[in-house]
């Protein structure tokens, strides 16, 4: 009977988590005292106006940016100072706001190489890539050179590539930017299915409030590098501070 107890204990530690993190660039704070926790299979929405520090937070969570202050833990292990490749190896995948595909490789290779990097054989990675590409709607684009894809397909491929290494946590930096309403809806359907289909937790950065509200288990609102509010979508919606911060950004854009 000791086993279930131990299991509960590990599960409690299972999370991608930062506590009291600050990031300074040349003395200016891009992030100030932010704590955030992403537990297995949950979807957390990260919202805030441009320059709020969302991308910087993703960089901290993936080892691309060392926090000036605060801690980073991955499933209980102290992950501060880990290289991006090591963080990735431990189960955290990300996409990029600016695409960043392997432009001269074809679509299948882009996805396949992620599986290979995670330790699959070439053939195994290829099968996995084929499956994932099918799920994101790129099944007919295998032989296309990634750099030649239309913008929205590039975003989808970025997600497929992240999924191919079978992550436990996936961080999506504005995946729907530049998509039409119907494309965005289709993509959100895919994102909604990630915990069930791929067993991964999702941190979703997305500007469309309607979309984030409907998808997320919890929301985290940043403004000027600080946490304004966090909580269930219904709770957040009621907050005046959030609405003015967010609507302010909407107008500014």
């Amino acid at each position, binding site marked *: 009977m000791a086993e279930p107890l131990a299991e509960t204990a590990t599960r409690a530690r299972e999370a991608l988590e930062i506590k009291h993190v600050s990031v300074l660039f040349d003395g200016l704070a891009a992030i100030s005292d932010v704590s955030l926790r992403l537990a297995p299979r949950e979807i957390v929405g990260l919202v805030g106006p441009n320059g709020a520090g969302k991308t910087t937070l993703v960089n901290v969570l993936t080892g691309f940016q060392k926090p000036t202050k605060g801690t980073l833990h991955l499933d209980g292990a102290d992950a501060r100072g880990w290289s991006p490749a090591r963080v*990735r190896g431990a189960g955290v995948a990300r996409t*990029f706001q600016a695409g960043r595909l*392997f432009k001269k*490789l074809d679509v299948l290779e*882009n996805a396949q*190489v992620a599986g290979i990097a995670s330790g699959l054989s070439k053939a195994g990675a290829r*099968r996995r890539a084929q499956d994932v590409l099918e799920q994101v709607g790129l099944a007919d684009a*295998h032989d296309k050179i990634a750099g030649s894809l239309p913008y929205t397909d590039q975003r989808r491929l970025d997600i497929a590539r992240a999924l191919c290494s079978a992550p436990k946590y996936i961080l999506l930096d504005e995946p729907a930017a530049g998509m039409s309403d119907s494309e965005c809806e289709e993509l959100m359907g895919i994102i909604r299915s990630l915990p069930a289909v791929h067993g991964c937790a999702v941190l979703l950065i997305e500007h469309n409030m309607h979309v984030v509200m409907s998808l997320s288990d919890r929301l985290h609102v940043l403004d000027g590098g600080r946490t304004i509010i966090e909580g269930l979508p219904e709770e957040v919606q009621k907050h005046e501070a959030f609405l003015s911060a967010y609507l302010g950004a909407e107008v500014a854009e």
Partner: protein
Amino acid sequence: MQNDKLKSLLETVWTPFGLIAGLAVVTLFVQLMGTGTVQSFWTEILIRIILVTGFYIFIGNSGVFAFGHAAFACVGGYVAAWLSMDAMFKQIMLTGLPGWVQSAHVAPWLSVFAAMAAAAVAALVVGAVIVRLSDIAASIATFAFLLVVNRIYSNWDSVTGGAAPLTNIPSLGGIWASFVFMAGALVIAWLFQQSRFGLMLRASRDDEVAAMATGISVYRMRLVAFVLSGAVMGCGGAVYSFFLGILTADVFYMSLTFLLLVMLVVGGAESLTGVVVGVVAVSCVSEVLRLGEEGVALPNGDMLALPLGMQQILLGIFMVFVLINRADGITRGSELPLPKAFRKPQSIVSGERKTAS
């Protein structure tokens, strides 16, 4: 289904197979019809393909321009010469060599493998440092390495003969001996580029940040490629020294480096097909220019010749001209296309995908 498998196999091996087959046909033709001059011209082309392939394995897959690889050819060239030369000569001239090397009399083809191993070890030591540098710093550092190696080999009289060339280096055999090593180099390069390491390295070439985010250890991949390319350079250097029969360190220095890099860039640095195309195209142009420097006799008895040194100047201009028109070289990074008749129709490709998933 069997047929599909065959075709998909054909697709993966076509490039090296097609290139090697094409070069074999020309080699056979040259052997049967060519004069001695033409034969040695073509043999030199085959050897340059080995050397440019050595550059390509690292540069083409990593996107980092390493200028110093001729140093590994130098290492390989001397190892091959030391092992295979007549013992008597070594005992008199190269007194600094260890005794077992002085008395060694290894078959030339075998010493090519020793040359590869030595060059690979050198590349491992140098590469461990160099691949950690950023792109520009790495390029400069490889160049510095070439300078160091050249200075050492030019001045270490008791081991390399210094300024006096090593002579009496045995021959590897005819044109086909060089051909076999050339084919081997192409196959190695192709296997690497198709391997999991090659794919990860090419991904990091396109976007290093995304590669790190994908969990690729960029350093490790670059080091693997650096060592392999060093080994192939060692092979090329060895075969070249057997071809020349006479060796100084300056054989593997600036002008060779310049020529090989022009070949790589003109052909297209991002495909193996580009290596072959570049070597053949640039060799032909530079041969014409060399003949131009020698001059032609006009009917009235005067000689019309290019001023000496024009060969390299015009070669540089030729490279610039090609690059202005095709920034990615003649092949633009694509490989030899499979003849249409052998290609899989599109519908079968997607059918295969469904059964596989």
